């Protein structure tokens, strides 16, 4: 059966847990998306921008030196870092902004963690001449100064969020409050596969271009399906986009969550590994929370993974056993960040470095005939200042 159902449920997960004020807006959005999805004009416009503006298709690159270094499975990198603006986020942003324009909205709001979704949204808004406000936690503004400046250059208003943990979760609260207030003229451009229906479905569909291209490319390269797909999971959009076109295939799916300073320290973002079902930001899904249902503050060195929730379809994939979810610590991600830079000349986003770190652990144990595809969801330029600071503290600089 096609999921989600008409009310946005993936088994027990998903749904629309939002104030009544927003329910009509979600109904309107659901209808608008259903219309657009089946319309050639919409799909062609999206194709056009993905090709000529974003730069798709992105390559599937055989990481030969990394593969040799690991001595096991062949490692392929899906190069989402080569997209315009440097991450997969823009696949979704282009789709939604074209939809927003069709719906006659003049203003878009978005939340951002690492700033990649904020930059993608500011970019698309600039290109289409829409007003754009991006909510970003103060802590993330500090960690991701480059992206903050990029958004401002692009003409967006970056609104610092000082409530709660001052990270993505709180930015999302503020974006929703803005939307509740300005719902008549404002489109909420959500950046991952979380939130109320239809967002988890719609964002997945827009990101599924990653998986569709990968399928063709791996067949070209290997003549068969890969053994395993690996992607980091923050809200879950780059992983969902890679996994979705392979759901019915005999391919292992591995999502990688941030273990932060270690699961046992409580300072992590491993929602699927250490959380339980709850409602946050409009959907029922796994959630990091205390015994009383208060949402816990997440931690990850990667701002884009630093979120206590996860998209509902991942909760469903976990519960049905179709996908597996593992974790990688800050330290292991930092090591992978440096290793990939040295071996392949590719500086990955710290988020994507989590997926690479998981591959470092598993590839050596696999056969040389096996192929792994890892989603390189973004490039690491934005992280260079923060990584430099951490490494300087730890061991006096880059090793």
């Amino acid at each position, binding site marked *: 059966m096609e999921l989600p159902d008409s009310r946005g449920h993936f088994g027990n997960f998903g749904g629309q847990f939002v104030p*009544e*004020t927003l329910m009509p*807006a979600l109904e309107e959005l659901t209808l608008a998306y259903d219309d657009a999805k089946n319309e050639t004009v919409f799909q062609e416009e999206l194709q056009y921008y993905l090709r000529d503006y974003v730069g798709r298709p992105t390559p599937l690159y055989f990481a030969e030196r990394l593969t040799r270094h690991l001595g096991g499975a062949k490692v392929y990198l899906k190069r989402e870092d080569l997209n315009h603006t440097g991450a997969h986020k823009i696949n979704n942003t282009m789709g939604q902004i074209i939809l927003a324009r069709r719906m006659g909205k003049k203003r878009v709001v978005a939340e951002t963690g690492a700033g990649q979704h904020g930059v993608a949204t500011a970019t698309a808004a600039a290109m289409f001449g829409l007003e754009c406000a991006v909510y970003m936690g103060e802590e993330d503004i500090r960690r991701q100064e480059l992206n903050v400046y990029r958004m401002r250059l692009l003409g967006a208003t970056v609104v610092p969020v000082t409530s709660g943990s001052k990270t993505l979760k709180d930015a999302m609260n503020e974006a929703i*409050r803005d939307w*509740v207030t*300005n719902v008549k003229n404002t489109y909420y451009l959500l950046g991952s596969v979380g939130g109320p229906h239809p967002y988890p479905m719609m964002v997945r569909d827009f990101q599924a271009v990653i998986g569709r291209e990968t399928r063709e490319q791996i067949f070209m390269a290997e003549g068969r399906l890969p053994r395993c797909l690996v992607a980091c999971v923050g809200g879950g959009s780059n992983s969902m986009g890679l996994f979705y076109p392979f759901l019915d295939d005999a391919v292992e799916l591995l999502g990688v969550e941030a273990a932060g300073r270690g699961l046992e320290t409580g300072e992590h973002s491993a929602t699927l590994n250490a959380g339980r079902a709850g*409602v946050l930001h409009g959907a029922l899904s796994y959630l990091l929370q205390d015994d009383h249902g*208060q949402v816990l503050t997440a931690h990850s060195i990667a701002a884009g993974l630093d979120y206590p929730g996860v998209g509902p379809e991942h909760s469903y994939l976990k519960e049905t056993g179709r996908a597996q979810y593992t974790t990688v610590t800050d330290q292991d991600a930092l090591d992978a960040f440096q290793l990939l830079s040295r071996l392949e000349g590719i500086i990955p986003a710290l988020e994507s470095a989590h997926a690479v770190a998981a591959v470092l652990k598993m590839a050596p144990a696999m056969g040389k005939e096996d192929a792994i595809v890892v989603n390189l969801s973004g490039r690491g330029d934005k992280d260079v200042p923060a990584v430099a600071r951490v490494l300087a503290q730890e061991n006096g600089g880059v090793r």
Partner: protein
Amino acid sequence: MDINRVEARLRKLHENGEKGLFAFITAGDPDLETTFRLVLSMEKAGVDLVELGVPFSDPMADGPVIQRASLRSLAAGINLMRIMDLVRRLRSYTEIPLLLMTYYNPVLQYGLKRFAADAAEVGVDGVIVPDLPLEESASLLQELKEDEQHLIYLVAPTTTPERLEKISRAARGFIYCVSLTGVTGMREGISPDVKEFMQRVRRHCSLPLAVGFGISNPRQAALMAEGADAVIVGSALVSLVEQFQNQPEVIYERVPGLVKELKEAIS
């Protein structure tokens, strides 16, 4: 008790040709003793129903005043269990209608069955869940003993006529009319569209209508009361609690003081 306290109070108000004043405060802000005394003193000052806010870490439908109250309450270690105890204690002193206003997750984690049973046992008359729209409310509704604990639905200026019909069919007690498109909090004026909005709701709903969000002074309350059966005031009261959190005696004077002015304004 054979009839829900909310319904009994609304009926009495109607018979006397009076408008109701509903007060929202965050439970446990800054501590449970303050909440306990405020409920009793607000009742004396003329409040007809009290909504006790259950604190939540991520109150997406609330403005800064109630967000901060929620954080103060959480910092004081307040949770749903302790709020149930508070209601039990209050029930030895008062029969005022008491509703819990809570986001869905604290209720979900408490357990829907257990929540319904405890609410009935301690004397909660109903629950308002701002992030639980009609379409998602079946599981909670199933557990509540419908005549004793109402699930109060909200409608907003954006609610379509079709939704108004559906919500009205499912609703019990009263309908919570959100006067503006936005979050809770004090506003300078009142929306010029509110009159038309209330008339529209009235055409679709036969239950009493309570209007809330953005009402903070007697003048606004009087204007809002025109199209409604009750007005709901929250942030203005919570803001007094915040302002005088270190001077409890001022809180116990100013909060009932504002309540009295509001009640007079709508009488």
